[in-house]
């Protein structure tokens, strides 16, 4: 048998990993929507979906099948090409996050030396997708929603990146595997508690989650940038939102909670446990706190998160150079 040329080997790897990522993302979103509804119900003293399947687990599957059969309605005055492109642009970059997610020692698709910076650059493409969605719908609510979304995303990207720099300074690397390996004795949530809080708040805002969900504030903007979307195009935005929650929780678990590290259980299980714990907290926050106002949201990023992130960075730099001097 002739050996497979490396090009085809690479192509097969890309297709395989891509398929696995899409599969995981879909199942994960179905699970998270169910979880969200159950968590919301519990917090509001209701029961939530319990009838379809065990504990209502198949309810979201039924919803997804219904969405698949829906007609794709396109507003007459919308921009045909961009309107169809936007959901894809908003969702697809999130799949790239799985390239750098370390599931265990050596179990990572590509251990890039730019590490999670890749994720920040991919997130920017998502914002452009949201932008295009709002503009091409030719609807005032959609336009306002997407403008809010982008203003918010630009603002919260700065504290998000600054907070991760504390971890980078401590470990001296951006590689995800090395960052996890550096946490074998103490998790960075203990060394960098301020950075973790800032990262958590900023990633909530980046994923447009309550209490930072003003881009889709129902009471003012109908549904924000995806007001005019229906059927599977709407579902793609929805999928994107839940994937963003999962990805930011997984990155937070990797950077601050020791990633795959933990006793007894295998690495991927630990990572998933930590990630879903963070997702649970995200949902808990959504159903507990009221939505912020637009100006409060901006003030929170620029007057609270960024100064604290800068102070944290400065403190970490001093601490690291002291450590280097003493060592």
């Amino acid at each position, binding site marked *: 048998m002739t050996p497979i040329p490396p090009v085809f080997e690479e192509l097969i790897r890309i297709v395989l990993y891509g398929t696995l990522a899409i599969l995981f993302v879909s199942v994960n979103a179905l699970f998270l929507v169910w979880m969200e509804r159950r968590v919301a119900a519990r917090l509001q003293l209701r029961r939530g979906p319990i009838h379809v399947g065990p504990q209502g687990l198949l309810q979201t599957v039924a919803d997804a099948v219904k969405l698949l059969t829906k007609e794709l309605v396109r507003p007459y005055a919308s921009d045909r090409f961009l309107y169809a492109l936007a959901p894809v642009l908003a969702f697809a970059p999130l799949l790239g996050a799985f390239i750098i997610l370390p599931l265990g020692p050596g179990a990572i698709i590509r251990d890039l030396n*730019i590490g999670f910076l890749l994720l920040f650059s991919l997130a920017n493409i998502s914002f452009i997708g949201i932008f295009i969605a709002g503009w091409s719908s030719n609807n005032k609510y959609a336009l306002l929603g997407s403008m809010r979304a982008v203003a918010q995303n*630009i603002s919260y990207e700065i504290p998000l990146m600054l907070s991760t720099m504390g971890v980078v300074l401590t470990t001296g690397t951006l590689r995800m595997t090395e960052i996890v390996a550096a946490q074998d004795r103490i998790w960075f949530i203990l060394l960098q508690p301020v950075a973790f809080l800032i990262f958590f708040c900023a990633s909530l805002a980046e994923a447009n989650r309550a209490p930072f969900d003003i881009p889709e504030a129902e009471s003012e903007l109908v549904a924000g940038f995806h007001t005019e979307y229906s059927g599977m195009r709407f579902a793609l935005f929805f999928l994107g939102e839940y994937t963003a929650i999962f990805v930011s929780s997984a990155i937070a678990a990797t950077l601050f909670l020791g990633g795959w590290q933990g006793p007894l259980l295998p690495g991927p299980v630990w990572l998933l446990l930590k990630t879903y714990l963070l997702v649970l907290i995200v949902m808990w926050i959504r159903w507990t706190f009221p939505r912020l106002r637009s100006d409060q949201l901006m003030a929170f990023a620029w007057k609270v998160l960024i100064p604290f992130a800068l102070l944290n960075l400065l403190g970490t730099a001093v601490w690291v150079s002291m450590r280097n001097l003493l060592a």
Partner: protein
Amino acid sequence: MNLADSVFIGLAVVTVLGALGAVAFRALFYNALSLVLCLFGVAGLFIYLHAEFLAVMEVIIYIGAISVAIIFAIMLSRPMDKSDEPRSPSASLRGAVCAALVFAGLWRLLSGARWAQGSGQLPDMRDIGKALLTTDVLPFEAVSLVLLVAIIGALVLSSPRERS
């Protein structure tokens, strides 16, 4: 033609098409999006050259900040149904002259350049960071000064006028 060449040609085509679209489309929003495509092609070229850090920074800064600011300005200033205004020929001419001057300057610079032979060892982010704070600290600080002036200028322009 091997695979590397075809990847390079693909990226170059994307970049050039994006650049053409950035000036050729009539609708301003499409111009801005073509610019994004062009910058994305450039980021791809950086990855092709194993400069992942530059590629990521290209996307974060040029697409994530600058292009988004341009698109933001377009969205604030003109609604979708008002984008097909005729273009004034004198403005096009002025633009063409400016572009030709920049192109001629770059052409002169590039054709006269002597490229240093690389050591084969690609610098990683650590080397870039060290260089920015040691050997190249002067240009680095000059750039930060320019940005500071720009920030102060933006604050002055956007702050409410005092009534006197």
